[in-house]
């Protein structure tokens, strides 16, 4: 199922049994891959991340080594100093993103289950958005594992109060959360070390933005809206990033 795969140039090494999308289906720029290709320690690290033959399912791969050296088989050499630190900080960011995605996915699940949304168009949007958030959860979880990290579990959420207040509150909350998600990803872009992780984050970032804009529109937060993160085009022509502390603070009401 294509939607679960972030396509990257797939290793031509035969022992990595990944599905092979057409060469044109490239996500990451040539220069990012060249960097990988030119740096043997990076390359070894990525092969190690994939865990060798058969460890990766095509449905959940986010990161794939670029092609080339069939003789660079999966190496057991541990990552060196700086790479460990880079990985560690990227893993923190990925787990932060994962928590937000869990939150969003769970919220849409509860909204749909509540039956509050009667309008077919809106219900379809909620369903579709929820499905996308679940895909984000799955992809981030798989990536974290492949990088040797431990994915956080789904947090306990507190949406009952929101749901009790009815449809308008629910849609407003959805809009708020999506806007937060977009701002969160934007806030982390500069901190991500690994270019493939960055590419994935960017691919999710703009989807959260689409969700946010659609929901803003639905709840009447027009583009002339005032205030932080209100209005379908926050801050006018430029989106605002939010840092981890601010986002975590903002989502606290929804965590049990």
């Amino acid at each position: 199922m294509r939607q679960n795969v972030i396509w990257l140039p797939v290793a031509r090494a035969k022992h990595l049994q990944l599905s092979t999308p057409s060469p044109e289906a490239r996500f990451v720029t040539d220069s990012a891959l060249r960097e990988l290709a030119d740096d043997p320690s990076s390359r070894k690290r990525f092969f190690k991340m994939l865990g060798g033959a058969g460890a990766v399912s095509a449905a959940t791969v986010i990161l794939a080594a670029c092609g080339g050296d069939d003789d660079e088989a999966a190496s057991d050499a541990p990552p060196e100093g700086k790479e460990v630190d880079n990985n560690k900080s990227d893993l923190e960011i990925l787990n932060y993103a994962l928590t937000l995605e869990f939150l969003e996915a769970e919220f849409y699940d509860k909204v749909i289950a509540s039956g509050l949304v009667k309008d077919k168009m809106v219900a379809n949007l909620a369903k579709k958005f929820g499905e996308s958030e679940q895909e984000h959860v799955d992809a981030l979880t798989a990536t974290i594992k492949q990088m040797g990290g431990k994915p956080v579990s789904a947090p306990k959420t507190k949406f009952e109060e929101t749901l009790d207040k009815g449809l308008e509150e629910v849609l407003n909350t959805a809009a708020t959360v999506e806007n937060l998600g977009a701002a969160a990803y934007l806030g982390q872009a500069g901190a991500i070390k690994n270019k493939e992780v960055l590419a994935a984050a960017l691919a999710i970032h703009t989807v959260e933005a689409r969700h946010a804009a659609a929901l803003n529109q639905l709840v009447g937060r027009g583009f002339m809206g005032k205030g932080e993160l209100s209005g379908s085009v926050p801050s006018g022509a430029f989106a605002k990033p939010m840092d981890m502390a601010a986002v975590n603070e903002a989502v606290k009401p929804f965590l049990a």
Partner: protein
Amino acid sequence: MASSRLVAPELATIKVHGMTREAFLIRSTLAAGAAYGAMSATGLISSALADGGGDDVDILNYALTLEYLENEFYVQAAKQVKGLSKYESDLTKELRDNEAEHVDALAATVKKLGGKPASKPTFDFGGAFASRASYLKTANTLEDTGVSAYNGAAPSIKSTEVLAAAGSIVQIEARHAALIRLVRDKPPAPRAFDKASEMDKILAAIKPFIRA
């Protein structure tokens, strides 16, 4: 490399008046494997390297070219398209103004980096403004294309400041895309992961709109 394959085939159906010459050189197979920084400096993304801006300047000028296009598209749309609702008309103007701000910001950033901002091409959008439907369809394609262009280019950006700027802009383009799609009764966010496109494919896709 299938450099002539359009990232958005429907762009090819737009009627173009009197295209006289190539404004962009499509990267040849030779350049296909090169990093962004080594892209042959031709057409509108040209003298930045000579001015010492380097790779980030190239990427900014690429983005600037796309923003020139989007801005001009909405400038013309605001004047020409008939049959838009009040909301759609207001939205068109808002989008136009947003893109103008993007143009200004990107040009200023290029200058700050010691580069030379790409100049604004002459655009021709053919029959895009003939109807509300054709306008919205083209707008949809342009916004989605813009998102995939930024997402494709951003991982190559060296400076975190430039990356922050690009991220801040692409998020708005994504919002634009969603709003236009809603107006068209299309899904605002059809994919869980937005596409990222290579520069040569984007340039090929917008080539029909460039007159000079």
